[in-house]
């Protein structure tokens, strides 16, 4: 009898639910953050608020684990089965837009005028995706280390030069107090390599691909500047400043355990570093000749090409762009809010907040990864080249081979629409 009551109750509830929903058109949405409770809470809050705020649309969320997300979207697209709203990693967006998986957003550009450049997903002159946050990378170290090694504290206006940076590594190595002077994060294989290391190449004056045409990597990835970068990169390992293969546990805890003097790490790890040492400082990227650079663009929201209701999907994304949600996300994930006004609403990024320096860094030094559909392949080629050089491969031959592979791929794809 009790079971029957519950079943009837459930039935009634679901009937009531569907009647209520009939007035609203359902918009499906895919998100990459399955298993991340903090993100899910904020996102669900946005969806609940949006569904309650108007009578036309009702967003339904489906979450995927990040590792399987891109494959799921590709598989869904091949099966003609994409949701209305999807989220996309910034550098991957041009690939999906070019392949016809996404359509431009119906959001007025004045609405995002105050956004950082990284979170704006532009392709072919149109806005395809927009992010609520960005990420930044810095040199993490301790004030006491800088004092002890008698190093100048670099600033955004006067970052370390190549000589100063190398001098800092040498001084840290000579002090004998650290297992390795520098922790570039070799354990984080995958997107970390192009995200964190291609700005170093760009600071030397090279690039993954020639951005003036996007038709070739010749000269960008194997020119003089790239060769200088390659030699310097290999030197990090042959000089014993860094280790070419790293235990993932050391990546996570090595700095806190005092193994490394300097760690090249993202703002998402900054709170941990602050907990480890009171005097942790976040130094801006060095300038190797062509200006200090750090990567930009994180996960962003977009609308799938096959969506029947792009106006509703865009309405939801526009709704999510409110400062309070940007601040909520930043507070739960530690990522950088996309606007200055949202940053002021957070504990970490407000004026004088412990991570406020990251907002300034991304504002000053951010450079998005190459905006081309070929980036997906170019990122893999770049990652392998850097790993090989770190392991002792010949610099010129490796960069030449990487250049050839990227060029062959561009050619095979008819120039990727550039």
């Amino acid at each position, binding site marked *: 009898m009790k079971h029957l009551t519950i079943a009837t109750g459930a039935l009634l509830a679901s009937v009531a639910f569907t009647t209520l929903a009939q007035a609203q058109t359902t918009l499906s949405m895919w998100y990459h953050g399955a298993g991340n409770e903090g993100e899910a809470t904020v996102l669900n809050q946005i969806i609940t608020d949006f569904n309650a705020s108007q009578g036309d649309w009702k967003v339904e969320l489906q979450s995927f684990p990040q590792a399987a997300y891109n494959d799921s979207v590709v598989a869904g697209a091949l099966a003609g089965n994409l949701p209305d709203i999807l989220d996309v990693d910034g550098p991957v967006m041009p690939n999906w837009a070019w392949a016809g998986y996404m359509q431009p957003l119906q959001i007025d550009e004045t609405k995002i005028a105050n956004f950082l450049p990284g979170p704006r997903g532009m392709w072919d002159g149109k806005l395809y995706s927009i992010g609520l946050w960005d990420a930044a990378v810095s040199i993490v170290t301790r004030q006491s280390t800088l004092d002890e090694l008698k190093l100048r504290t670099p600033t955004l206006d006067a970052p370390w030069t190549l000589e100063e940076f190398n001098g800092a590594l040498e001084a840290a190595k000579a002090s004998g107090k650290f297992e390795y002077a520098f922790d570039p994060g070799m354990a984080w294989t995958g997107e970390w390599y192009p995200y964190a290391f291609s700005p170093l190449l760009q600071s030397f004056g090279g690039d993954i691909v020639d951005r003036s045409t996007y038709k070739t990597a010749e000269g960008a990835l194997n020119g003089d500047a790239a060769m200088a970068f390659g030699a310097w990169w290999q030197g990090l390992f042959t000089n014993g400043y860094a280790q070419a293969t790293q*235990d993932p546990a050391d990546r996570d805890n090595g700095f806190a355990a005092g193994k490394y003097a300097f760690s090249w790490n993202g703002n998402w790890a900054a709170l941990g570093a602050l907990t480890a040492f009171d005097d942790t400082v976040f130094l801006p990227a060095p300038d190797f000749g062509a200006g200090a650079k750090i990567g930009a663009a994180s996960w962003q929201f977009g609308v799938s090409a096959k969506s029947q209701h792009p106006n509703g999907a865009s309405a939801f994304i526009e709704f999510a762009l409110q400062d309070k949600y940007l601040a909520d996300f930043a507070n739960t994930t530690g990522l950088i809010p996309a606007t200055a006004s949202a940053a002021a609403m957070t504990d970490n990024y407000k004026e004088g907040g412990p991570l406020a320096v990251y907002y300034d860094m991304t504002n000053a030094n951010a450079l998005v990864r190459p905006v081309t559909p070929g980036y997906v392949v170019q990122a893999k080629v770049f990652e392998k080249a850097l790993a090989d050089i770190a392991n002792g491969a010949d610099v010129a031959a490796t960069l030449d081979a990487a250049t050839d592979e990227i060029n062959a791929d561009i050619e095979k*794809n008819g120039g990727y629409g550039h």
Partner: protein
Amino acid sequence: MASQFLKSNRTGWLMAGPAAFLIGMFIILPFVFAIILSFTNQRLISPNPTEFTGLSNYRQLLSVATLTLDPIKDAAGVMQKAADGTLEYPAIRSFTRGNPDFAHLAGMREWFSFGWGESRTYVLARDVVFLTALVNTFIFVLVVAPVQGALALGLALLINQKMRGINVFRTIYFMPVVVSIVVVSLLWRFIYDGDSGLLNNLLGAISFGAIPRVDWLGNPNTALGAIMAMSIWQAVGFHMVIWLSGLQTISPTLYEAGAIEGATKWQSFRYITWPGLKNTAILVLIVITMQAFAVFAQIDVMTNGGPLDSTQTIVFQAIERGYGKQDISGGSTISVILFVLVLSISLFQRWITRERP
């Protein structure tokens, strides 16, 4: 005659039907696709139309060329020597990049080289990574097939006896087979860790620190060997069970007769056990060979083909290209090459182990 065959076997066909359908749908059909795609420029994601490109994918993968160079001589004709006393040769780069006199070498890369008197011959390849993967896979098969087969036979002989608690041993040896290869690979990554890994600690303890720490997976000289050792350990239990089933089909009366004749242990193994295991041996050999050619998960979890391509394998490259680099045609081409290799090797194995009249 054929219709008679089909009719009288109607029940048989009915029972085989579901399996035949599934194999057709999910193995044969995709494979036919792979063959077709290998002659096109099909991409995983692309708005561009697919075009037939003939054999270009195969040419891209398999092209090799040689280049023989004389040492650099100065104006007086004296050969230049590097700081370490070796002869210096012109940079390969000056021939393979933008050199119209060597247009056929454009875009090629040094695979390996060997000295030939004073001159030096360079073997250049268009796709060094794939050829390295091919060689690595062959090394992997040539080591794993005999070693794993022999170890499995040894274990099977050990546990093929009536003894209390023998099932405990059987379970222990079989356990790694039941655990997912991904989990096993993750665990062995910790074991092989260059810093605080179990293996380094163990070697250090038994040698009182005399054996230096080795970064097993980070060193190009040890990475493939480390993966081979782990792979052999992981699947040895499976083949042990197959050997065991073969052992148990041998009639005990043969051993009794042998014992009465005064056969030694070695003799009864050589003249009773081994001939009785012939068909099992063929099965084990072919299965291990095929499995070893398909080595993928270990590589994907433990090394990603690195360091310096020392653990690239054929299947890893097929998947890396097809999905990672969105080049379905390239991945398909590698799969077809692998299929031809495995098929010819299996046929060869079948032929040398055939029944001789």
